[in-house]
């Protein structure tokens, strides 16, 4: 029953407005000039955010939400699939996060890409960046507003495509000129493995329930007798495979660190704040299925927890400012997945939101640092041609606190929020996850605590290496603070990172009540002083340990080994990411390449397929060569043929 004063009819515009921006930029973006294209894209996303706000207000009046059907999509036999948007509290939350953080990152990107295209020497590509960015918003909105798994899959693949396009934005750059292209390819292929899982889950859903529509699937699943739970277990496990691909969990996380080859706003928007959380959203959306398969839930929980710890250990050993944040993202996604896995969806979504704030903030600030370093490099090179300094390597930084004060303060805010220092947002969301975990499984609780300790440690290490001490290179000495178009979004995000905890403040539990309209949640976990105390102490210990190693004494020159080097092989393992890439290379990529080259290309393709095709041609050619000998061009022999033919026909007629 529609309630007056609602705006659900506006729902399609969260997709159409960014699409409009995309089309405008595609058609006349080049003529608008760089700022114009960026402003169009930002306006498109910003207005989508306004629509999402209106939808959220409508949901306050009518909390059950509404399904807005745009058109019928497929009608095959009994299967009917619609282009229908599901506006409920869960999807509205995602819409707000995607469009809100997205808008800030769009605005930031106007300033960032201006310098980036200049630095990379192809200003023509500026418009293309914003076309891709709006396309991403379109796909992500499709994903979160989908009313059925098929439409969700369209968005799922759409964001994957944008991720690929944007990782390879400077596709001719990177190691040996193919590094970025390879990173993009890797992300795409690894995601295909995950998508295989999601597709299998969808096939199973269709086969067993005969529909893709969320409500229909969940009702059918609930109505199933207990004997059918094997099917649901299978569905949820395949879905988990999809999630490990998109949300970069063990064992498919390897693409995310390489994805940092994309420009920094891409890392912030796609590979930290929104796209990678699609997996978490998918599991939250499919909660009714997961509830029916407790075994799958515990698998999810363990995958999340192990990823959280594993990625956090790697982050400790990295030097690239963005790689640290990438592994940190994987680790935090592990927290979310673990939370959703054990049914604490609110905690997971809460962490998703706060993480979107502070991780976007951290990435954008890292981008600001990189820009500062690059401008420092340019200022430095004016005098004498020196050695190229990697502007992303933290060993080359140091002392940036004085050179880039705004960036420093927002970075500090983000880092503290991520480490879980009260009263910043990360503290509340992480605490909620830990509280829920603590009541379910002690080993997972300990694993997550260890991950939280490492989180605080690597963030402290990064802060001190980038901003603390003295400048270790001339470039860092000459680094410059950026213009307001870059720093203002940072400040807004910093404020959000500080206040984000209010969304589900203990006692108020706004997010909990908000999401309860959509999901059947258990009772909210009470705020536990004990857990909060433990996690705060752990976080502070982590930061203190980082200070002991990296802050107490100045680090000196960039060539000096890391203070953690005395840990021996363990540090080497962290630095080399536990050799996961090498193992995958050896176990998967090389055998696959061998099979592709030796079996498929040489034997199957060249010998069998080409052989059949070539032999058909050769036989025809040989036959025709024989026959063509008859066409000798001599009139007299043709006459002989004719005579023989007539004789043969006559003979037949006479002697038949």
């Amino acid at each position, binding site marked *: 029953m529609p309630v007056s004063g609602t705006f659900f009819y506006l729902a399609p515009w969260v997709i159409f407005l960014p699409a409009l921006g995309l089309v405008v930029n595609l058609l006349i973006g080049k003529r608008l000039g760089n700022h114009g294209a960026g402003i169009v894209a930002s306006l498109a996303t910003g207005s989508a955010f306004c629509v999402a706000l209106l939808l959220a207000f409508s949901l306050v009046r009518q909390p059950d939400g509404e399904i807005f059907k745009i058109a019928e999509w497929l009608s095959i036999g009994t299967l009917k699939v619609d282009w229908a948007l599901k506006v409920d509290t869960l999807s509205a939350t995602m819409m707000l996060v995607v469009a809100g953080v997205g808008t800030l990152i769009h605005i930031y990107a106007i300033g960032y890409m201006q310098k980036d295209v200049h630095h990379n020497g192809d200003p023509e590509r500026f418009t293309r960046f914003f076309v891709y960015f709006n396309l991403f918003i379109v796909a992500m909105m499709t994903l979160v507003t989908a009313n059925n798994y098929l439409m969700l899959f369209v968005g799922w693949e759409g964001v994957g495509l944008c991720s690929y396009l944007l990782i390879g934005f400077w596709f001719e750059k990177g190691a040996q000129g193919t590094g970025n292209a390879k990173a993009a390819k890797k992300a795409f292929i690894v995601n295909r493995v995950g998508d295989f899982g999601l597709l299998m889950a969808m096939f199973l859903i269709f086969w067993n329930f005969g529909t893709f529509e969320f409500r229909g699937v969940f009702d059918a699943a609930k109505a199933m007798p207990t004997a059918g739970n094997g099917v649901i277990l299978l569905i949820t496990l395949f879905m988990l495979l999809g999630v490990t691909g998109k949300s970069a969990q063990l064992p498919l996380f390897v693409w995310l660190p390489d994805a940092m080859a994309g420009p920094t706003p891409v890392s912030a928007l796609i590979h930290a704040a929104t796209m990678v959380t699609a997996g978490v959203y998918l599991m939250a959306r499919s909660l009714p299925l997961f509830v029916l398969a407790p075994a799958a839930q515990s698998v999810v929980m363990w995958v999340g927890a192990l990823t959280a710890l594993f990625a956090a250990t790697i982050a400790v050993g990295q030097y690239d400012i963005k790689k640290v944040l990438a592994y940190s993202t994987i680790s935090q996604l592990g927290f979310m997945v673990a939370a959703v896995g054990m049914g604490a969806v609110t905690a997971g979504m809460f962490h998703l939101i706060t993480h979107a704030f502070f991780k976007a903030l951290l990435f954008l600030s890292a981008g600001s640092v990189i820009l500062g370093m690059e401008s420092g490099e340019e200022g430095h090179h004016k005098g004498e041609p020196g050695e190229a300094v990697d502007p992303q390597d933290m060993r080359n930084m140091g002392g940036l606190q004085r050179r880039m004060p705004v960036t420093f303060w927002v970075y500090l805010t983000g880092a503290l929020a991520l480490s879980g220092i009260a009263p910043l947002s990360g503290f509340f969301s992480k605490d909620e996850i830990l509280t829920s975990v603590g009541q379910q499984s002690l080993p997972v609780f300990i694993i997550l605590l260890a991950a939280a300790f490492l989180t605080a440690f690597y963030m402290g290490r990064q802060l001190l290496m980038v901003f603390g001490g003295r400048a270790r290179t001339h470039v860092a000495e000459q680094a410059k603070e950026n213009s307001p178009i870059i720093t203002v979004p940072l400040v807004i995000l910093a404020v959000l990172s500080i206040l984000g905890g209010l969304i589900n403040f203990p006692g108020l539990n706004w997010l909990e009540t908000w999401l309860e309209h959509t999901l059947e949640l258990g009772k909210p976990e009470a705020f536990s002083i004990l857990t909060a105390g433990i996690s705060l102490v752990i976080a502070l210990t982590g930061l203190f340990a980082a200070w002991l190693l990296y802050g107490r004494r100045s680090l000196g020159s960039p060539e000096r080994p890391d203070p953690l080097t005395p840990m021996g092989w363990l540090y080497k393992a962290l630095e080399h990411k536990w050799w996961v890439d090498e193992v995958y290379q050896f176990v998967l990529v090389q055998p696959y390449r061998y099979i592709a080259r030796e079996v498929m290309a040489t034997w199957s393709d060249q010998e069998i397929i080409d052989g059949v095709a070539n032999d058909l041609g050769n036989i025809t050619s040989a036959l025709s060569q024989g026959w063509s*000998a008859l*066409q*000798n*061009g*001599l*009139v*007299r022999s043709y006459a002989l043929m004719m*005579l023989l033919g007539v004789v043969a026909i006559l003979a037949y007629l006479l002697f038949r």
Partner: protein
Amino acid sequence: MPLAFYVILSVIMFVIGILGVMLRRNPLVVFMSLEMMFNAANLLFVTFASYYHQLQGQIIVFFIMTVAAAEVAVGLAIMVAIFRTRHSIDLDQVSNLKG
């Protein structure tokens, strides 16, 4: 004279015509051989027309002669054209259609 004589003469003429077409390289001789074959057929028509007292055979002979005249006219024209381009009308050298 018995009918067989005419038939045998016609067969002999026809075989001579065939051999002339097949063995000679001079197109003029080939045309003459063709005429020989036509006339072998004509002879048979006339023979059987008078034998059976039917007029159709005689009439068909006129048609054949007309057609043969037309055919030779076309053929000779082609030969003149070939001679103009190739300066030779040796049939064995006109083998451009060789496969």
